[in-house]
């Protein structure tokens, strides 16, 4: 019963400080890869493309010395919603499908396509969650914010856009553990006063009903936090829009160019396999 431990249930956003070839890639490249591979996941059919992608992600995870099982834990909270979407799709969406239904339950007919659809939905979510978990496990926030800056540079007419956006990224990630901890505080406070968090036999609906009232106190907590943070930042000479420099600078190495090439090839092959 670790329902209060929001931060450990949250495998997204938990950086693993290791030194592997995956960790060493240039941040901008990591981000670009996530964008390209992520969109490949979205347009790829189930077999064999998605399966191959999944294996490829597992390979990256393995090279990054990460536990795939732990990474996949991030999908657990969305699992009920996925199931719900699947059920709605199968039973309640009217379709024109050809051929005979596989089997029927009461007045509902189940088609092969339905099962494919659900399977694809699940597979895509799995792949995306895995991809993002790997990304956040091998990319510290510093690098994400560097990557944002690098990728945004061509778009920012003024320097400040890239700088400020990258700071936004940093602070967002800074708030993830903070909010997880606040949520823990509030749920524990409610539980110790009779709310049924973390009791035996909790149904899904009951769970959802319990969590909704957390949203407002969490928002308030976040706002209060940011008020103090603004003061702390200003007292350390931060001025919005002013020029800033960076502690670390990243330079593209040969390996990075190779990986970029590889990712582009994978993306193109998948894309072409889809339209041809």
């Amino acid at each position, binding site marked *: *019963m670790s329902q209060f431990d929001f931060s450990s249930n949250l495998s997204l956003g938990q950086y693993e400080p290791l030194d592997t070839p995956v960790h060493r890639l240039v941040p901008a490249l990591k981000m670009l890869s996530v964008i390209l591979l992520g969109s490949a996941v979205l347009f790829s059919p189930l077999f064999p493309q998605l399966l191959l992608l999944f294996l490829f992600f597992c390979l990256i995870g393995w090279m990054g010395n990460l536990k795939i099982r*732990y990474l996949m834990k991030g999908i657990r909270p969305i699992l009920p919603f996925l199931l719900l979407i699947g059920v709605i799709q199968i039973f309640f969406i009217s379709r024109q499908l050809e051929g005979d239904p596989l089997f029927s339950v009461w007045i509902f007919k189940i088609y092969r396509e339905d099962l494919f659809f659900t399977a694809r939905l699940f597979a895509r979510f799995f792949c995306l969650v895995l991809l993002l978990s790997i990304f956040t496990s091998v990319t510290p926030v510093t690098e994400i914010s560097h990557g944002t800056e690098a990728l945004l540079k061509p778009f920012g007419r003024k320097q400040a856009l890239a700088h400020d956006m990258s700071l936004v990224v940093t602070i967002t990630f*800074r708030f993830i553990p903070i909010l997880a901890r606040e949520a823990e505080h509030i749920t524990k406070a409610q539980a110790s006063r009779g709310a049924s968090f973390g009791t035996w036999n909790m149904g899904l609906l009951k769970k959802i009903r319990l969590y909704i009232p957390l949203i407002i106190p969490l928002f308030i907590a976040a706002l209060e936090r940011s008020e*103090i943070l603004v003061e702390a930042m200003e*007292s*350390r000479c931060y001025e919005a829009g002013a020029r800033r420099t960076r502690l670390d600078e990243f330079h593209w190495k040969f390996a990075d160019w190779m990986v970029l090439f590889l990712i582009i090839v994978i993306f193109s092959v998948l894309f072409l396999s889809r339209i041809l």
Partner: protein
Amino acid sequence: MKQKNTIMEFSSVSYSYPGRDEAAVNKISFSLKEGSRVLIFGSNGSGKSTLTRLMTGLLRPDEGSVQTAGLDSSLRENLRAIRSGAGLLFQNPSSQIVATVVREDTAFGPENLALSSSEIRQRVEKALKRSGMYALRRRASHDLSAGQQQRLALAGVLALGSGCLILDEAASMLNPLARKDMDILLDQLHGQGYTIIQVSHFMTNIAKADKILILQAGKLVFEGGTEDFLVRESSLSDWALDLPDIQKLSGELKGLFPELRKTLDEKQLSSDLKPIFAGLRQDPPIAVGETAPPAGPPLLSLHHVNYQYKAQSRHPVTGLIDLDFDFYRDETVVLMGSTGSGKSTFLQMLNLLLLPSSGRISLLGENPLDKKCDLARLRSRMGLVMQQPEKQLFASLVGDDVAFGPRQAGLQGQALSRRVKDALDLMELSYSKFRDRSIRALSGGQKRKVALAGILAMKPEILLLDEPSAGLDPRSAANLERLLLSLRDEGIQLILSTHDVEQALRFDPRLLVMWEGRKVFDGMPEQFFREMDPEQYGLEYPLVLRLWQEGNSQWRESFPLGKDQLKSRLLLGRAV
């Protein structure tokens, strides 16, 4: 000695927050010399925090002028120079951290100054070494303890190149050990020429100060050195401040022994006391507090209980190891131990927010590990007041928050409002006045009382308190302690954790000492101090015992623990 420059100059500065009539700071003038150590005291709402914001140009004075290192803070172009010269540390260590990695956060200031990458790296390294955080430079900032986070904040300020550190209540959320560490660090920095301005409602470190300022209701009511401060001690209560323990004790002992000097310095007091201790006749044997045999079966009992945090993950964290604990009727238990020793885990387990990974547990005759057990109901019989309970207030109005527990239990209408009223009464908050107050508008002490009322409204049989007075100003802390003692008189049993050994002794408890998830001591406090070394477990000896040890090499045989014990011992000894 070379003439020191003025680093900070306030000339009749006033400031009022927008929308408020009364001035937060009212016509304040003073000047501080470079390299000095300054203490600024004041109760809640005295304008201390406003003063620190004025010093760093986060606020601009309505009237008068603030010059920091010769620069006028009302000119925008000076702000950068002022802020890089005078760094501000806040009360809550975690909320001033910007980045997610230690070295990144330290670099935030220099990055804002647009320094070159190599220059930033040098500064970060130097600042982290100086603040003792270098070994942790790659750690995630949210994984640090409060003490480490405060050091990190300090490093961030040092990396800016500040020669002046302003600490706004910066030690109040730290435990005694971390506070001591911080003090040592500040001593070092002061030795290296840093100006240190500490703002606090705790009257500590007075002996080290070059200058003391006291604020009350926005006015500067005292400015002077420690000598002047000793003379003015009778005015302290008018300023809503409390004497430091050492000064109180020294005053009371002077009443018995006129030859003693009034002092703020523990070392001085103990050396003054030495001849008096030496002149005492043979120590009267103290009545060893025999533990009465426990009455009836235990209310709570834990056997071989283990707990691990993040048990599923790559880095599980030990919570509790092989813990045995029986709790009987009419007992009061105080848990002590350093941060991470497992006190909070233990209390949360007693409230069933955490269930044992292994071991047996029985609470009030029920077995929570049985899936038929109604945990929610059992929890409400053992009210838990968590650390900084004001963080756990989730409703927006006082009445709603206090009503949460009873409402969950099914109470409605009249019965519910009666329950809320009774709980608020116990905390000495008026129902009609506070019911519809917004929680955000309450003071820290009031918030804590509301949080306690929310627990009391469930009519718990046992009250679990995790550091009930940590982070409160001394007055609210004393007030809260008095309320807790009166609750105990009304039959609510207490299990509480605290960092403060003096507070622990005032509850006259059975003492439980934890260390790295294990129970290392369970018994009467006298026995603990006689047989074990508190410092080994991150604790300290109580003040009276520290003084006693200085003067008595054979102190273990018999010793006083509290102020009253010391005084009666001295009177008895002198009578012969």
